[in-house]
């Protein structure tokens, strides 16, 4: 069960040679709520993209009215999920995983462009306190601070246009709102495609997917970490 391999420095996440002992163990990296959040958000985003691009006229598999209803309801559910998750993220300290960092970002990018093809190992070793590599943090942080708010805010303005537009006949601002919403939608679609592809770049094609379903993932741990988890959080380690 416990493998001894080269170690990594928890501080930087960069692979370094060290003489410290490390252990390969299955660790529960994604809590039940995190997995619920991830997958329900995934379903909602697909639903929103499908219905949204129907409303926009790009695709036509379901009637316009149905698409509008689905889009509006899904949007409200997703907003609720987001607000609750924001609360959860801050109260549980999970927000730390999402703080972007430049350290190692370039290495990770170069790995995906070149190193990967050469069969080199991933330059970033994930740790208990830092589940995401710098590129992931950067991408998720952008989604959460730019694309997400752009979509939700423009979407709410779009949805409630009769409250602010009133009787003014101001169609230009309405068009702008729609445009911003559409730009957000395209960015989100691009992100989702990239995200789904990156999921296949783990040790196996389904490594990351499996992790997000079961919650457990192979991690390299120090002896202290193993001891800590086995003592205080036995459920998190196999």
């Amino acid at each position: 069960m416990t493998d001894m391999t080269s170690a990594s420095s928890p501080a930087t996440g960069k692979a370094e040679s060290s003489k410290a002992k490390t252990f390969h163990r299955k660790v529960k990296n994604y809590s039940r709520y995190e997995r619920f959040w991830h997958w329900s958000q995934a379903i909602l985003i697909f639903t929103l993209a499908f219905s949204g691009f129907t409303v926009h006229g790009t695709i036509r598999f379901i009637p316009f009215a149905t698409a509008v209803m689905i889009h509006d309801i899904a949007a409200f559910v997703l907003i609720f999920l987001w607000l609750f998750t924001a609360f959860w993220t801050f109260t549980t300290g999970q927000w730390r995983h999402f703080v972007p960092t430049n350290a190692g970002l370039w290495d990770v990018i170069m790995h995906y462009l070149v190193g990967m093809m050469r069969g080199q190992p991933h330059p970033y070793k994930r740790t208990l306190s830092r589940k995401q590599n710098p590129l992931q943090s950067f991408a998720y942080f952008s989604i959460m601070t730019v694309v997400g708010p752009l979509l939700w805010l423009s979407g709410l303005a779009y949805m409630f246009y009769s409250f602010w537009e009133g009787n003014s006949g101001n169609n230009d601002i309405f068009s702008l709102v729609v445009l911003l919403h559409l730009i957000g939608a395209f960015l989100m679609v691009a992100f989702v495609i990239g995200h789904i592809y990156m999921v296949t770049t783990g040790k196996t094609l389904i490594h990351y997917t499996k992790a997000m379903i079961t919650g457990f993932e192979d991690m390299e741990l120090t002896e202290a970490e193993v001891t800590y988890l086995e003592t205080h959080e036995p459920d998190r380690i196999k």
Partner: protein
Amino acid sequence: MANFAFEGRWPLDKTSMRPGLATSALVVLSLLLLPIGAASAASGDALPHSPLSPEAKASLQLSGKPAGGTADHSRFEILQQDFKSGPEVTKACLSCHTEAADQVQHTLHWKWQTTNEATGQTLGKRTVINAFCGNVASNEPRCTSCHAGYGWEDMRKDPPSEPEAVDCLVCHADTALYSKYPTKAGHPLYEPITVNGKTEMPPDLGKAARSVTNPQRQNCGSCHYYGGGGDGVKHGDLDSSLNQPDKTLDVHMNKDGLNMACTACHAGSGHQWPGSRYSMEAKPTTVARDGEETKTAKIRKLDQLASLMEPSATCESCHSNRPHDGSDLMGIKLNDHTDTVACQTCHIPEFARGGVATKTLWDWSTAGKLKDGKPYKDMDEHGHPSYMSEKGNFEYGENIKPFYAWFNGETTWTLLDDKIDPTKVVEINALGGSPSDGKSRIWPFKQMLSRQPYDMETNQLVYNHVFGKDDTALWTNFDWSKSVPAAMDFIGKDFSGKLGFVDTHMYWPITHMVAPKDQAVRCTECHAKQGRLDGITGIYMPGRDTFKWLDWIGYAAFGLTVLGVLFHALLRIIFRNRKKQA
């Protein structure tokens, strides 16, 4: 103080006691008459509209005012006579309804003339040119058969001023008992007449007078259904199918449902009511004169009755401007449309739905052709005339999807003195409105296509003398070179003699024939490319509109992302063995 107030309300001096005495006498008299009336009702003499007949009471349409009940006109002594003429009947009516004639003579129904405050134009049948028969002047006895009076024989003069010239019966009598004759300047027949071997009998005016009640759809329809020369020809949303409509044809007039008379919506007082298309409310207000918002339709109705608010014949008067169920997401979404889309746009998916066709095209330029020196008539496959020597070529249609346009309620007419550009289609009543003025909404119209006569020298539309047994009328002589000069001469206008024909559009707002809600226009019919509202500009419509190149940038970004991912995957496959070597 109390005493003074009491006196104010009930003056007890002797002079004002007299009406009271008279009233008592009338009550006694009517009590004496009651058995006679009841007997005559029992013997089957009760007229169709008499409040004595319970079936008749049940069949009366829902009017703006409840049908009296305190007076049975069939029992009025003054109406028990053998009237010789329409004006004689009116005189009898006015003996009780002292103000009625004066009221009528101040309305558009009487004057056929109105000044449009927004454009300053003088409009009304007396002056405008329409895309159907054209003009009234010089064709009076035919056209004024739809004047609400008797004997207006010259458009150059005001309508007759004597009170007895008002026709009470056309609006109030049972239409089975009374009608105006088509060529007698508003009079009914007084003598039997034989036309093409068929003898028509004059109406029994006494019987007609005793049948009066609040106007039924048939009354208004006797003129408004037949505008343009035949059933349903002109409006497209008003024809005789509305006499007995079912729910699918019109939810309000549904004979088995609300059975509303025209005046249920066109509800005014003093013989004046709202709803003229010469100046419409495209985006009705729900604000009363004091600037307060009327919160419910009931308050609005009361405010209108109390003159605290302009009477209005709009959907919003009863249904408000948030008419859909606001506790339901779909209802909220639909309510979001009311700022830009008129109710009629969705709720009248098609007009001419009652089995009566409406005229959609009228080409006057071909009129006058003869076969063997005689006028002739061709019929289309549905039995509608497609050519008549008198009138030219026609097209008719049923179940027609409306034409849609931004509309602020105002129309600018091309009148006799206005210059036209004959190289373009002339707008007979150009629709006012724009997407950004805050006053317009998207409205449905019947768009009438016509080809009409004009003076090629002056580039002005001309009047035409069509009706009359003389040597110039077009329908008698089939000669344009006589009919147009005769009409222009009649009104004292110059005509160069160079007659041309110009294509015209005329717009008829569609507002009747409201379908049941489950038959309203589907969202997808407009929120789609090449949908119903394809021609509507100035607004972003989800499902119809895109941002053109910005959309393409989005799709390109999508495509490039997919390509990038595929390329990366391909490289991974190509270099998959490197991992083992490493």
